[in-house]
């Protein structure tokens, strides 16, 4: 029995748009699993079908099941799910712009009933992971930088004491250095706090470096899966997602797009 498992789910938006066509994946406890793919492949939809935020977007899981620690979670409300320890950090950060950074973090503890002292402890812990948030604790989140907002969003999720974080596109719109910094913290949280991660990313290179396992999604289907190290050396992945080919670097002028066929399409 695995920790989080998605079994053959199909997702339809607005009763007509078929987005996921039978996706199955597993996240083992204490691991980082990367969900890779291009725009519109269905990464975010997969995450939202786990966290049940889908219904608010008029999407529906029409087939398959989602199980967390052996019990089905696809009928729970997002709030119940957060209480069970699964929380999503949404794409594009979604901090509460008019609340200060500290207030943002405090809202993350909404589902937990804890004393003032415990709350203070959780805050201090988040500040220990993200020292930069501490220096900006009283500024309105809307006026902080993109990197700080991403940290705020992750920190806010941490306040709910999750076992598993669904992290959607943390690298979006951030400088490579900040991306590196954020992934380091993810790795840290994973090893020190034993938080499992399911990570949707377009930045395949970075994601595969930090993840243990990876799935590649294309057009709403899982087309490839494997250990992150294996995926990194796979010829197809290298060519189509990492921009490397067996001949090394090459000029795009000479690229003929039909030269190589994705093997999984055959």
């Amino acid at each position, binding site marked *: 029995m695995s920790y989080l498992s998605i079994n053959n789910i199909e997702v339809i938006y607005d009763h007509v748009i078929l987005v996921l066509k039978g996706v199955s994946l597993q996240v083992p406890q204490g691991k980082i699993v990367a969900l890779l793919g291009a725009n519109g492949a269905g990464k975010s939809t997969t995450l939202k079908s786990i966290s049940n935020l889908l219904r*608010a977007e*008029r999407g529906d899981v029409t087939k398959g099941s989602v199980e967390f620690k052996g019990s089905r979670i696809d009928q729970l409300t*997002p*709030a119940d799910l957060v209480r069970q320890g699964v929380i999503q950090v949404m794409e594009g950060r979604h901090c*509460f*712009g*008019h609340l200060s950074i500290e207030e943002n973090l405090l809202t993350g503890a*909404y589902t937990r009933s804890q004393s003032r002292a415990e709350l203070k402890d959780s805050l201090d812990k988040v500040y220990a992971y993200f020292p930069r948030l501490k220096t900006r604790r009283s500024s309105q989140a*809307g006026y902080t930088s993109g990197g700080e907002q991403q940290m705020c969003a992750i920190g806010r*999720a941490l306040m709910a004491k999750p076992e598993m974080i669904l992290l959607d596109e943390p690298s979006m719109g951030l400088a490579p250095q900040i991306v590196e910094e954020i992934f380091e913290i993810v790795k840290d949280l994973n090893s020190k706090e034993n938080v499992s991660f399911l990570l949707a990313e377009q930045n395949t290179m970075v994601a595969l470096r930090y993840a243990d396992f990876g799935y590649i999604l294309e057009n709403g289907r899982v087309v490839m899966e494997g250990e992150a190290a294996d995926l990194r050396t796979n010829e197809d992945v290298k060519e189509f997602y990492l921009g490397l080919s067996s001949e090394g670097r090459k000029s795009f002028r000479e690229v003929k797009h039909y030269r190589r066929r994705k093997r999984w399409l055959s």
Partner: protein
Amino acid sequence: MQFFIEVLVGGLLSGVMYALVALGFVLIYKASGVFNFAQGAMVFFAALTFVGFQEVLPGWLGMAADSSIVFWLAFLLAFLAMIVLGVATERIVLRPLVNQPHITLFMATIGLTYVIEGIAQMTWGATVRGLDLGIVDEPIAWLMDNYEIGISKFDLFAAGVAASLVALLALLFQYTKVGRALRAVADDHQAALSIGIPLQTIWRVVWAVAGFVALVAGMIWGARNGVQFALTFTALKALPVLILGGFTSVPGAIVGGLIIGASEKLAEVYVGPFVGGGIEGWFPYMLALAFLLVRPEGLFGEKHIDRV
């Protein structure tokens, strides 16, 4: 000088009455980003329900109509009715419209206005009723005797009620967990949902609180002008107050109310004669219009934060 003070204070106090109605708007706008067009109807509904219960309760309980038990029981029942109304609104109108554009929700509240007005009049009838809070609308004798300034006891009482209500709500929003969650929901529905804030509960709380504010506003306005359909138009008076004070600020509603109240009375008395009078009715709207050009978010409203 005495006359000026009398006009000014009278204006400020009537401004507080506007603020009371504006408060209901602010609450719902803060928590759901919706301009609740039905607020005026809610004021009407609340006042009518209160008066209605006041009429039928003595018969049911076999008590005298002026006993304080009847008064408080009617108040409690009217508040309960407002809670039921709030919960029903959340279930029937808001829940199916999660994540829809704000304008959709706004349109839905316009529809809601008619439903609420209809229910209120269907249940209690459409006759104009009086409402007695036991406070007479006459000048305070002491001020009148010593300074010759006429300030109504009733106005002062209304101001006191409004001030305490505002203080209470400001504290609720700023310092409690639920208040924080309310502000979070106002900023971003989806994000609030994603960190486990149950939108439904928050909305129910907000509509119930707005219902309570509507009840208080309805009782005070009703005591002043009689409980009648015209109560729904108090909402229109709240508009310039909101624009001035800011749609998202509880203290803004009160400050906006004071400014509007004072300026409309002063304008009527000191500017009115030059233009033939009768400017009290439109002056606040002109003021709000001018204000919109200078500071569209209002005095205390939240600035639109855009990352560029």
